[in-house]
């Protein structure tokens, strides 16, 4: 295995004007978040008895889980199907998934009325509830993601443990411990990698099952018993675009050259995946005869059209073109569109499609809700920037300063 690129901590200044701006958004979010915990959900959100779920579930959780799909899709490609050339992107994708899911959990924690009972699903089981399954799978998957990230931590500190002051004497034992941990992980990592993919498939689809029980309240453009399948297929489709966009954005921000060859390769998988999704979506609509709802002009039909045309069909066509797949700008735009499409799809499914039979007040997300959602995204970006400076995540040309080659990616290489 020849590595001309090596994951290494990136050497950049943390604060730039952009980062300061993002910090302000994060701060604004934190203020409203405090408001939610001190004064209750009603004080910050516009949720009511007709609309029990808003953007915190639709975006923070629904879209959050889908957009973190880069983690399990690249893990499957790189570690399970052993397409080695993609190993360079498994780490950034893993980090994004880890952060993404952490904030999905934060979103749930914020949205549920009794956050101090968040552990209840571990004790009180309701097998018939898809939400129970989503909850359990997300908890386990989050644990798996942290375990998968551990080798990156051990790699960073093995032979490099420098505890301050009196703790110095512990340097050697800690180093030994890390090495033992690393060896243990090395041998068992494949278990976690496969588990991560299985858990992902389960909860990505069950997230779609959530709205099936509310079928009488759902707009027919989205309502279908195959929602779980559609959610799974769209999660497959959005995984690689997410990695591509993130790679391009990160390299720009860190002053590196994007790995065109790898990204173009990844892009090759996107059109077929999108195609399968579209085939099922359109086929289902034809069978259930729901195209007729598109002739009505209302919020639902407009949102649906934007979602499917801008977010799925246009990028599907773009990813089919070789020219697009080989241009950084083309890749960026096409990937962005898919991400937009899946993001909108989750928002539409959880918020726009939900039409309660008795509407007393319509739901429009409050400034506070939007602030918290944006705040979470901002904190995620800030943490990402912080972590790639500390840990060897982003692959860079090996100038010798990079981490020792001995500890490269462990996952699945056994």
């Amino acid at each position, binding site marked *: 295995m020849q590595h001309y690129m090596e994951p290494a901590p990136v050497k950049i200044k943390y604060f730039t004007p952009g980062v300061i701006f993002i910090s302000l958004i994060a701060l604004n979010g934190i203020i409203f978040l405090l408001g939610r*915990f*001190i004064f*209750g*959900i*009603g*004080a910050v959100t516009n*949720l*009511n*008895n*007709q609309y*029990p*779920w808003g953007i915190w579930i639709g975006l923070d959780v629904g879209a959050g889980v889908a957009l973190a799909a880069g983690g399990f899709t690249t893990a*499957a490609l790189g*570690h*399970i*199907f*052993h397409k*080695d050339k993609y190993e360079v992107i498994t780490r950034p994708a893993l980090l994004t998934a880890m952060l993404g899911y952490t904030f999905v959990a934060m979103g*749930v924690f914020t*949205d*549920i*009325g*009794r*956050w101090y*009972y968040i552990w*209840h*699903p571990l004790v*009180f*089981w*309701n*097998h*018939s*509830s*898809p*939400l*129970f*399954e989503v909850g359990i799978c997300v908890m386990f998957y989050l644990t798996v993601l942290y375990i998968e990230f551990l080798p990156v931590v051990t790699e960073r500190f093995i032979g490099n443990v420098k505890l301050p002051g009196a703790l110095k004497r512990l340097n050697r034992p800690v180093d030994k411990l890390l090495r033992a941990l690393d060896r243990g992980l090395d041998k068992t990592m494949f278990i976690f*990698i*496969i588990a991560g993919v*299985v858990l992902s498939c*389960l909860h990505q689809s069950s997230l779609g*099952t*959530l*709205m*099936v*029980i*509310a*079928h*009488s*309240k759902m707009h027919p453009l989205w309502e279908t*018993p195959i929602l*779980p399948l559609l959610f799974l297929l769209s999660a497959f489709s959005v995984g690689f675009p997410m990695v591509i966009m993130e790679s391009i954005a990160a390299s720009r921000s860190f002053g590196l050259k994007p790995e065109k060859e790898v990204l173009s390769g990844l892009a090759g998988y996107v059109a077929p995946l999108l195609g399968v999704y579209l085939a099922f979506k359109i086929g289902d609509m034809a069978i259930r005869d729901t195209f007729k709802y598109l002739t009505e002009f209302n919020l639902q039909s407009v949102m649906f059209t934007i979602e499917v045309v801008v977010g799925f069909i246009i990028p599907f066509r773009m990813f089919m073109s070789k020219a697009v797949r080989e241009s950084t700008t083309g890749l960026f735009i096409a990937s962005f569109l898919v991400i937009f499409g899946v993001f909108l799809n989750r928002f539409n499914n959880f918020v726009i499609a*939900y039409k*309660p*039979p*008795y509407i*007393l007040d319509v739901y429009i997300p409050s400034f506070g809700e939007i602030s918290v959602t944006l705040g979470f995204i901002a904190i995620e970006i800030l943490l990402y920037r912080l972590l790639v400076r500390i840990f060897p995540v982003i692959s860079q040309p090996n100038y010798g300063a990079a981490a020792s080659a001995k500890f490269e990616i462990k996952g*699945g*290489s*056994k």
Partner: protein
Amino acid sequence: MQSRREFLKTSALIGAATMGVSAVSNSKLKAASPESAAPAEHMGVLVDSTLCIGCRKCEWACKGAHGLPQGDFDSYEDRSVFKKMRRPDDTALTIVNEYKPNNLGDPDFDVKIQCMHCEHPACVSACIVGALSKEENGAVIWDTDKCIGCRYCMVACPFQVPAFEYQKALDPKIMKCDFCFDRQKEGKLPACVEICPVEALVFGKRVDLLEEAHRRLKNYPDKYFNHVYGEYEVGGTSWLYIGSENLSGKVFPKLGTETAPGVTESIQHGLFAYFVPPVALYALLGGIMYLTKKNEEED
């Protein structure tokens, strides 16, 4: 009860029917999905909206029975509240709405609304921690010690009933009619039924109420629209309604006869049938991982 037993004996449905002969006297029985069958011990209430005078005493009694601020007894005589359609919420677990008749000239009619206590409740099936349960007497009740406040029950309920105390930072509750579960345990009637001055609400075994409902529909075909709302809707509800016109689509949502959680439960149980699908996927991925690795080593 005796005649019912006799009937059962001769019925072609003996055996299969055992407990859930929900509508023995109803000729529609053969067409009914098996889901409409409810255990015979389930209690219910028959609401006859042609009798309801809109006095809203049930609202007052309900609040009293559930420790909610009741306000002045006389204030309930104010009929101006009927100008707006209301919904049960965290301050009132039941409310009475007034509806304009389809035929101009007919009198307005009033309908009391609360949790329907579905025979196959979506809320119970959906709740992440099983905080909602269908009790032996038919009541669907909520357990404050389990609920995490996710509000999925509200998303799931086809009648849009459960409400949430959004204004509370600590221990917000899911608020909905509990069929006076505690009062029933003490042998008392539900508070609303007890106070109703005109017997617009009749409490009893669901099977008997259905019989009574159909008796009224048959005896007074001019007075009633021939439909018992709740007999088959979403697989049946413990609360049953009859009225001068079709309540489906006007007072209540138009719902099919299939149970609300049916599709979801078959998806869930299909996916997790003895954990076979997840384990099979695990094995498949493990196999691929092993084989591709081997290929690579051979290359």
